[in-house]
């Protein structure tokens, strides 16, 4: 008796598995029990369940992982202004009215070491190194923004309508 159960165990199990529904919706149209694989092979339900749950998780994750929208010059400006406003000496001096034309030395009264500190904060924000030869010229906020735009290849372009766009490389959907 025990031998029979052991022998038929694998075959009996699929009959119970029909009651358990798979979580994938694309199984519904196949009209086959859940443990029947695409090529007609019968898999133990544990494997099928594990497989479908992993697939479900992947599908859910794929919905979360989208290409972020491309950077615009506005983003870079706002990030640079935020970094400048967060700097201690600018906050202490209550000089939060920073615009693009603000000069670090002349308008804010910072010295060159403060300038270096701002540059390091910008490096940490944007995630790349600003070489020594380059930051000597970046004394205004506008110069910094222009440099970063140039470095990160950020170009302002009008947002195309999908069906009438002239160049598909500028669309976001095929990345």
């Amino acid at each position, binding site marked *: 008796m025990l031998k029979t159960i052991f022998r038929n165990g694998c075959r009996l199990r699929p009959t119970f598995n029909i009651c358990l529904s798979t979580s994938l919706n694309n199984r519904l149209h196949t009209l086959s029990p859940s443990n029947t694989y695409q090529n007609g092979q019968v898999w133990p339900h544990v494997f099928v369940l594990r497989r479908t749950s992993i697939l479900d998780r992947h599908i859910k994750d794929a919905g979360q992982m989208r290409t972020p929208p491309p950077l615009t010059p506005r983003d870079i400006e706002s990030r640079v202004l935020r970094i400048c406003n967060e700097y201690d000496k600018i906050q202490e001096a209550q000089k939060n009215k920073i615009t693009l034309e603000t000069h670090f030395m002349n308008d804010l009264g910072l010295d*060159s*070491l403060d300038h*270096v500190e701002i*540059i390091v904060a910008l490096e940490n924000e944007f*995630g790349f190194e600003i070489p*020594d*030869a380059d930051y000597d010229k970046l004394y205004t906020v506008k110069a910094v923004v222009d440099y970063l735009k140039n470095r990160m290849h950020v170009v302002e372009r009008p947002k195309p309508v999908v069906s009438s766009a*002239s*160049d598909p490389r500028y669309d976001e959907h095929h990345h």
Partner: protein
Amino acid sequence: MSNLPTTFLTHSQRVCRLYKALFVYARRQHWPDKLAYRQRMVEYRARFDTNKNVQDLMKAKRLLIAGEEELKKAMHWHTDNFNFPESPYGIAESRYPTPDDAALDGWHPLEKAQYPTYFATREKRKKAYMEWYLKRYGVPDPPMM
């Protein structure tokens, strides 16, 4: 390469470079403790500020060279450079490559039909390039297997 001395640096520029190199050093010493790193940088800044008003240029230069030597000795056993993740030699270098332009040739005709102007021009340009190639180099050999 960018740190090769191709130009003459003024005294203040050298001081700025030393100060920025100290950021790298402090980050290496204290990573990932950001608070200790900031503390270290404040201490360095205080040391710089004590000698801010030195008018004697010889003395200032001696101080600068002493600082550079101190940094050199401290950085001596740090063999690896810190690289930002997406910079060259960083851990995420070229992780998200720009797709090749030839990928557009593999689009389905229905997809291509959504951008008629672009693909018409593209076909024209490809044809012009092939003509130019044949004129310049002749018929290419078949690729080696």
